[in-house]
């Protein structure tokens, strides 16, 4: 805004626009004033500008230095930051649902009698070994010796008994999956005996989840904001929906001692922010990373590793078995024929696996059922025509699902189903609304959920479940499978049941979501498989190059 000459346009007169000097001397008729005229001084704009530029430069320099990714000398880091997606709102693993809690707490902070490994098999944890009676009704667990909680309290058979009795007595979350539970007693400080009223072939697996967790009966703390367990880590800070800081548990008793002193877990709802965090070095691991965004890291193998892992996430497009139109099996089958699973998977980056039935590859009873309902639009059109609908006479159906899955799937399903004369009205709602409408009130035609739990076939054997799927044969097969004392027999029964379910088409399994994990080279020991259900971090280490 410097003053420029020519304020008044041009001078038309002959007189030159020289700066007037004469009036300045005798401008006032008051001589005493004329003597004290201020000498007009220009402000040193140039200097101010230079100073401003300098200040900005210095500030940017400081910012750049402060924010430089901490380039410490190569070597093992004592802090590793990992980025996850679904954030827990509280730490109360006994009451709050959601796999986010299982993921971060089980195996890290809380430990169960038994645990699962990367292949979804049951392995020892607090119990070093166990025996099962021949009738499958009594399980005897032999606990490790010298176990303790992070607060120093001893962990013995009494704590185990108390924890499971509390679970059953107060019906904490997941208590219902402890089918046929009879009683639990402490035989001695290191032995626990669990009795069932009838055999439950799922028992050990169930105990590897929330049901088998052991809590300190003497500790008093707010379960929502704190966690006291026996695992290799303890929660040093928890910010709801944002981050959890895990520190190595100094009182840890076992072999899974934390390899890294501090693990910071950050949660990103925005995929782009997550990717930026990995790119900028704020996190060293990202799981999951959207396959479509992983390209930039996959293309840079010198610095990053990108890998997809197996999981038990089943994207279930459920058809309401009691729905006005979806109770017609022809329509359900038509929908299954109409959906092009390969296309869905391709649009998501191609990492996911097709899934033709209710049991994913890591669960017992898995069988490739994808050829039961291959993509066949003609067949679908035929079935629709039988049911009295077609492209000229479309059937309107409503699909309701939670906004956590994005809008793309709905758009794609609408497009695919439009070809066979289904006008799909897609409603993307909040999870709580979905819970109310679909899960609780069963008021829906189609619903889409990622059922990420493992061993969850019971859903199809429960006529009260929101699927409204009631097949006594399936229910009987599942009951037999539960009662089986032999794993092979159990798997066979489940296989039969799964095939039956898939044939009935109470739902379409869009795909088995495989989690893509990306990490900075030098990170070791981060589980790739099943890392959205349980994420043991004790072995996680980062050796920077």
């Amino acid at each position, binding site marked *: *805004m410097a*003053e*420029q000459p020519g304020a008044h346009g041009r001078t038309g007169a002959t007189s030159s626009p020289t700066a007037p000097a004469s009036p300045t001397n005798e401008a006032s008729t008051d001589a005493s004033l004329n003597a004290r005229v201020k000498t007009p001084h220009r402000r040193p704009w140039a200097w101010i500008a230079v100073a401003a530029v300098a200040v900005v430069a210095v500030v*940017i320099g*400081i*910012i*750049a230095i402060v*924010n430089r*990714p901490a380039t410490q000398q190569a070597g093992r880091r004592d802090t590793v930051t990992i980025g996850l997606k679904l954030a827990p*709102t*509280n730490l*109360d693993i006994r*009451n*709050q*649902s*959601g796999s986010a809690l299982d993921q971060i707490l089980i195996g890290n902070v809380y430990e169960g009698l038994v645990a699962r490994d990367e292949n979804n098999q049951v392995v020892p944890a607090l119990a070093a070994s166990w025996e099962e009676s021949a009738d499958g009704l009594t399980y005897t667990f032999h606990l490790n010796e010298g176990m303790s909680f992070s607060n120093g309290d001893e962990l013995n058979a009494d704590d185990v008994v108390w924890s499971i009795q509390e679970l059953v007595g107060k*019906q904490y*979350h*997941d208590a*219902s*999956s402890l089918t046929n539970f009879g009683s639990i007693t402490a035989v001695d400080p290191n032995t626990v005996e669990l009795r069932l009223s009838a055999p439950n072939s799922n028992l050990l697996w169930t105990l590897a989840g929330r049901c088998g967790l052991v809590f300190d009966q003497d500790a008093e703390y*707010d*379960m*929502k*904001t704190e966690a006291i367990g026996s695992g290799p880590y303890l929660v040093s*800070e928890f*910010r*709801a*929906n*944002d*981050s959890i*800081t895990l520190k190595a548990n100094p009182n840890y008793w076992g072999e899974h001692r934390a390899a890294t002193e501090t693990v*910071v877990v*950050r949660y*990103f*709802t*925005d995929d*782009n*922010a*997550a*990717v*930026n*965090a990995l*790119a*900028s*070095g*704020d996190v060293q691991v990202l799981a999951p990373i959207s396959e479509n965004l992983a390209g930039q890291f996959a293309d840079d193998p010198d610095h990053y590793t990108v890998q997809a892992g197996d999981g038990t996430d089943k994207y279930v497009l459920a058809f309401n078995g009691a729905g006005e139109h979806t109770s017609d099996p022809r329509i359900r089958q038509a929908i299954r024929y109409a959906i092009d699973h390969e296309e869905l998977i391709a649009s998501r980056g191609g990492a996911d696996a097709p899934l033709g039935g209710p049991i994913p590859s890591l669960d017992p009873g898995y069988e490739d059922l994808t050829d039961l309902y291959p993509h066949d639009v003609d067949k679908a059109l035929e079935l629709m025509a039988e049911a009295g609908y077609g492209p000229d006479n479309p059937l309107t159906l409503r699909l309701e699902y939670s*906004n956590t899955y994005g809008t793309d799937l709905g758009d794609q399903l609408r497009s695919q189903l439009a070809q066979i004369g289904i006008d799909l009205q897609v409603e993307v709602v*909040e*999870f*709580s*609304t979905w*819970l*109310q*409408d679909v*899960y*609780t009130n069963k008021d829906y035609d189609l619903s889409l*959920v990622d*059922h990420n*739990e493992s061993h969850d076939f019971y859903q199809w054997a429960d006529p009260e479940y929101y699927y409204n799927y009631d097949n006594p044969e399936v229910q009987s097969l599942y009951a037999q499978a539960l009662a089986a004392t032999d794993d092979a027999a159990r798997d066979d029964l489940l296989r039969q049941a799964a095939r039956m379910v898939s044939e009935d088409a109470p739902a379409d399994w869009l795909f088995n979501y495989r989690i893509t994990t990306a990490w900075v080279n030098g990170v070791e020991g981060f589980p790739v498989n099943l890392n959205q259900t349980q994420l043991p971090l004790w072995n996680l280490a980062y050796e920077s190059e």
Partner: protein
Amino acid sequence: MRFVLRRLLLFVVALLAISVAVFAMLRVLPGDVAAVMAGVNSPPERVAQLRAELGLDRPLAVQYLDWCANLLHGDLGASMLTGRSVSEQVGVRASITFPLITLGLLVALVIGIPLGCAATLARGHRARAAYRLVSIVGGAIPALWSGMLLILLFGRGVGLIGVLPSQGFPAAGWGAPVQALTSLVLPALSVGIIVGAGLMRYTRSALGELAASGYIEMAMSCGMTRTQAVRQVGLRLAMPQMVSVVGLTFAEMITGVMVIENLFALPGLGTGLVTDVGNRDLIAVQGELFMLAAFFLLIGLLVDLAHRALDPRLKASIGGNEVSA
């Protein structure tokens, strides 16, 4: 004095009205926090049990009065989901959001007012058209988009000149002041540019009106240049109006701020509110909405008071609403 009392009374009445409205609206919503806690693998009995534990099965009026009673003690209750006290939770989130808004506003002021002055003083058709274009285009960019563009430019690890963090807030919060501040720079720029463009427009029009007025001529006739007069007298005279505009902007900025917080993964009030509404954590939402509303009402009150303090013509009059036009 009477004016202040009246405004305060209004403030209290408005708060009360808002509390009832928020409560009533939230309680008739479908879905509840117990169902969210129970998740998709729990039998209905478990939901009922949780409802009872959380006290959601009591009559609405009882719940409301209970909440009001606690409110009188300055207790907004504890979030059903996180178990933390709502006031503490809001405080933690506000410690990100309000600095963000303030920084954004600062950016807006730094951009808007000088550019507005320059636009007023610009000579020639072309210069003025250019300024106008800047202000209009600047105000027409969606926050989402400008935020993204800024990340592409300056985001550390992804940007062309990647020097600034583009996501998250340091775990230590304001305990690490430099990191905290730098993590707010890009978000603040994103919101600030848009608001700044609006402010520039407003400054220009307010000053433009004043520039042709006798006040500027008078100041010039006393010996100021036009630039000096516009900056010293014009800005000062525009200030009462500007304060009102900035006050309203402050409230309206929260929209952009919510988007920006999501984009930059900042755990502030915006992201918190969206999550809590989604989880039907009614106690928390109620508390947050109430505090936000109270805050914005307070801003409104302060703006009105500042407006009066800045304009001696209003200060003198009584029951000023008749004149504040």
